[in-house]
């Protein structure tokens, strides 16, 4: 009879985390920034497979890592939000509840399954000044192990998180117009990838625009990006 090797829980978790981190580090990064009228999400993404998506009226999703895994999480988020909004009211669908649900689900996989999810996600919710108690923007970042943090101003996910944070820390200012926030996001991603400046074709940009009626999420077209970024 063979005796299985003993692996300490610490070692097991450290190995899983190492594995997930490596997977995430291979991909490109995403930044989310608050601007004067909402939240803008900027991803370096030359492909036509989206990393940013609409979840609900005021909620957006962004994911990095393994496409099949974070896209599955995006769809699960849409289902979660639509069922909740159908059973209760549209205003009962909140970013915090969704971020918590993601945290639970991703954390569960990390502890129970052999292979952790190689993903990091952002849940962003734009505030609505007309709804008392819903005025503030909120941004959550959920890691591969289910750990969840909330952020003000800006947040980012992906392999180059530290470089992005270093770039944005002194340059980000609250209440920037959209154009400035978008250029800042692009410049941060450019700096973090140590490459040539990112052209509009290599960017995926979506906004949660507080001033839109109903669904606040909007995907910027390549022409719009060219007009703003030049």
């Amino acid at each position, binding site marked *: 009879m063979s005796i299985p090797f003993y692996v300490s829980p610490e070692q097991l978790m450290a190995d899983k985390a190492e594995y997930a981190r490596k997977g995430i580090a291979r991909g490109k990064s995403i930044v989310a920034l608050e601007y004067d009228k909402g939240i803008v999400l900027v991803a370096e993404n030359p492909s036509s497979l*989206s990393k940013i998506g609409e979840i609900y009226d005021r909620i957006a999703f962004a994911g990095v890592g393994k496409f099949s895994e974070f896209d599955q999480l995006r769809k699960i988020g*849409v*289902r979660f939000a639509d069922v909740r909004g159908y059973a209760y009211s549209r205003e009962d669908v909140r970013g915090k509840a969704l971020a918590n649900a993601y945290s639970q689900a991703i954390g569960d996989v990390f502890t129970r399954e052999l292979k952790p999810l190689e993903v990091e996600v952002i849940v962003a919710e734009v505030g609505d000044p007309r709804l008392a108690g819903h005025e503030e923007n909120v941004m959550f970042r959920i890691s591969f192990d289910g750990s969840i943090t909330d952020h003000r101003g800006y947040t980012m996910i992906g392999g180059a998180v530290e470089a992005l944070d270093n770039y944005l820390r002194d340059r980000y200012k609250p209440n920037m117009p959209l154009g400035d926030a978008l250029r800042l996001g692009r410049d941060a991603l450019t700096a973090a990838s140590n490459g040539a400046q990112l052209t509009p074709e290599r960017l995926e940009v979506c906004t949660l625009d507080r001033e839109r009626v109903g669904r606040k999420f909007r995907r910027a077209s390549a022409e719009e990006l060219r007009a703003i970024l030049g």
Partner: protein
Amino acid sequence: MLIRGRYQGSSFFELLEVDHPHLRPGPLQFPADAAALGPVPHGTTVLALRFADGVVVAGDRLATEGHRVASRDLQKVFATDSHSLIAIAGAAGPAIEMARMLRIELEHYEKIEGEPLELEGKANKLSQMVRANLPAAMQGLVVVPLFAGYDMRRRLGRLWKYDVTGGRYEETEYDASGSGGIYARESIKKAWRPALSRDEALRVAVQALTDAADEDRATGGVDLARGIFPLVCLCTAAGVEEVDSATIERIYREQVVVPRARAGA
């Protein structure tokens, strides 16, 4: 709990059926004897007509419960997404639920798939929902919607009518449904021609609802005393737009009140 859903497709209706059956709206289990239910609110007259830039969809605001008024300001025209509209006639409860469900269904598909359904796909989806309501329709809770929108591929307004079995018929000119629908249709028939202007189309719609209200007691028409006007929406390449009630009031006064007063004098 979040990750364990079994349903993997892009239909909200099927998602409820598979993973949340307790939330699913139909088939509704009403008593076999519909009379036991008593009268339930019914919405009455709605219409849709094509014009040069798209379609106009309009409905009166009255809901009746047998011979009584159930509501004077019921909404019967709903935007289902940025470029389509549904107008409902029939049993108000299931009809409004159907309009709400279609809106969620279209939005859900668009979010999951990353792009919206074609207009014809949306019309077809509604057909399945009307068919799913058939058991309730057999017991008197009939829902017969009109569906209209702007087809971005063909660059024109299109409209469909339905029967209780889910039958779907595209109309190239106009149609009206509900208790006053026949009068509204007769009224539109006299005034409709291809490529009406926006203003002309609004006038035809207001006139048709006024005529329907004149002949059918269950149709509301314009209620000047309470300031309640028919709900009129347009759908063009620019999207869905609700016409404000001041415009409807102006058209009503020019179109109906002034000529009547002249005739009286």
